[in-house]
């Protein structure tokens, strides 16, 4: 699952795809002290899983991710 065609990051976006396509979202994870960056499970888990695991607020977290991603053009997916 990747980002929405509009560039919007969704709860069902896969973490590994998200961080590869929008590396500027990585600081958001680090800021919340989340171990998702480089995690072996990031290819299985979604944004919703991460929000649930860390007890975050979905709306706020998605806003932070989308703001970071949209400040920088998406990277190639090779």
């Amino acid at each position, binding site marked *: 699952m990747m980002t929405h065609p509009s560039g919007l990051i969704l709860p069902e976006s896969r973490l590994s795809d998200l961080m590869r396509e929008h590396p500027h979202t990585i600081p958001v994870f680090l800021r919340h002290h989340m*171990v998702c960056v480089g*995690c*072996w*499970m990031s*290819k*299985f*888990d979604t944004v919703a*899983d991460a929000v649930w*695991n860390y007890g975050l607020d979905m709306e706020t977290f998605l806003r932070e991710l989308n703001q970071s991603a949209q400040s920088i053009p998406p990277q190639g997916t090779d």
Partner: protein
Amino acid sequence: MPFQPVSRLEDLTLFNKLTEEEIRQILKTARQQHIQAGEFYFMQDDPAEAFYVLTKGKVRLTQFTADGQQILLRIIVPVTPFGAVALADHETYPVSAQAVEACTALVWGKTVLSQLLGRFPQMAVNAVKIMAEHVQEFQQRFTEIATQRVERRLARMILRLAHQTGVKTPRGVEVNLPLSRQDLAEMVGTTLYTVSRTLSQWESQGLIQAGRERILILHPHGLVKIAEEET
């Protein structure tokens, strides 16, 4: 990530930066070798005379210790190279490669390999990368054995196997490998008793479901927390 299986032969590290035509030519020089469950592609200390890429089945890489104990180092699943030491000169295999089930592998013998490496020098660069990845993973595992608690090592091994071969199912991430608890114990350097006790504990906590030769990770993040715990 070292030893990460790929879905297409063309995606192997061995073929990095080679054109489709070059890859086709290299694949043409391979022969296919089928073996049955229990048979060996090669034995530890045999001269390393061929390089393999597994395309079907599962292969156990094991090593005998000086006192005759057999240690499981890795399970190879398609599509992954093994016997990469044959890409270097004057080497013997450090492990034995035994089929767990009926297997098919592409095989390049030593003579063909040296011709290929001469014709496609990029393959030699790629081979170095493969071996560097192997060294890196084993260094990491060695450090874990030397410094980490057993629970953490076991969690890291299960996560590593899940990353390499796991499949996402509605109930969790499934690692479906022919691994007994004894195998897991050997891979993380502990006893069968400790592995059984730890897996049972994780099962009662709802982290995993451990079947025969199958582990279902019900709560991946719970296992990650154990794996990431500071010593």
